[in-house]
């Protein structure tokens, strides 16, 4: 609900979005047990994307992503299994929407898939986020 010009509350219909994003990111700063990645995403929204990968163990990471489409942002968080094969690391799991801003202030969603591959040498990251969200 948001007020109109006269201040009366106006209902805003919630809508469901099939979120499908592919991001190409690079590391920011010196990766340690947390890797901060920034880049651009294409798909449902063409916008900037940031991903934080926290290395929990050799086999598990927690992932936080934020996309910034026009009019706001959407943030999600979850965990993923991690496996290395040669020079690449592969991760896959699910996240839940934890919040949003602006037009996406009421964003929600669970069981959103996140997967990707990261170069262990350069930390160049490709990530896929896909699932149903409510905004």
């Amino acid at each position, binding site marked *: 609900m948001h007020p109109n010009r006269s201040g009366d509350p106006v209902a805003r219909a919630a809508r469901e979005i099939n979120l499908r994003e592919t991001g190409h990111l690079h590391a920011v700063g010196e*990766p340690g047990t947390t890797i901060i990645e920034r880049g651009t995403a294409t798909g449902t929204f063409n916008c900037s994307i940031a991903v934080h990968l926290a290395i929990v163990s*050799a086999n598990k990471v927690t992932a936080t992503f934020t996309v910034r489409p026009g009019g706001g942002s959407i943030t999600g968080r979850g965990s993923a299994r991690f496996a290395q*094969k040669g020079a690449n690391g592969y991760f896959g799991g699910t996240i839940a929407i934890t919040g949003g801003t602006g037009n996406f202030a009421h964003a929600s969603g669970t069981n959103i898939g996140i997967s990707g591959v990261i170069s262990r040498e350069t930390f160049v990251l490709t990530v896929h986020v896909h699932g149903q969200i409510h905004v």
Partner: protein
Amino acid sequence: MRARVGISRARIVLLLLAAPALCMSVPLGARAAQTVSLETSFHPNRLGARTTIEFGFQVHNTVSRQAPSPVTEVDLHLPSGLGLATSTLGLANCEPLALIAGGVSGCPANARIGFGSATVAVPAQGEPIEEQGSLTALVGLPNSEHLEVLFYAEGHTPVFAQLVFPGSVLDDSAPFSGRLNTAIPLTPTWPGGPDVAVTRMTSTIGPRGLTYYRHVHGKFVPFYPRGIAVPKRCPHRGFPFRVDLTFMDGTRQSATSSVPCPR
């Protein structure tokens, strides 16, 4: 699925000339009691730095003039926060069969992640005979569930053998981030003879002493892999490690060690 344990049977050569000293059987049913100690260190030991982990455990036999019971499983618990996944250790994978057939040179150099030594006690009349061999740690075949590590041990005298111990980096609970679980195969000294017993094992996990190679414009260019990230904060009593050993006699022993917080 774990890599198969391999013993290159064609390469086990028995020094029969030394057999009179080795053939005396160890009394069956003798149960050696053993304790274990653990040492660990970081090289360098600096918060936030990239490092090589060095660990070593030793089995102490409480019964004199008798080899300890053979170790059958080693569980090394690693401290929380170590950035193993953000290192560039193990940029290639080692196929266990290639390791058994060709030794360390049968696998890519970029699969090596550490090296050390292993000491085994060979049962004999009187004091057990000790044999020391080299140890190389390599990343095994890719696994979607966990990281596979292969330990390749090679000894020469008095028993010539080349052994592969399969290990896996598994999940763990606080204060540990993971555990390196390694199966140690029982190794008979000779057909029907007693098994050798690992009494000491040391290894590094990290870039210290390692050289990797990348292909650049048709040439192999050497470089050093990136080490394991040390957390920027040190726990109150240092970075804790623990080793759990399982012995053939059914007993289990544990030992702890902490890498002190750098000053």
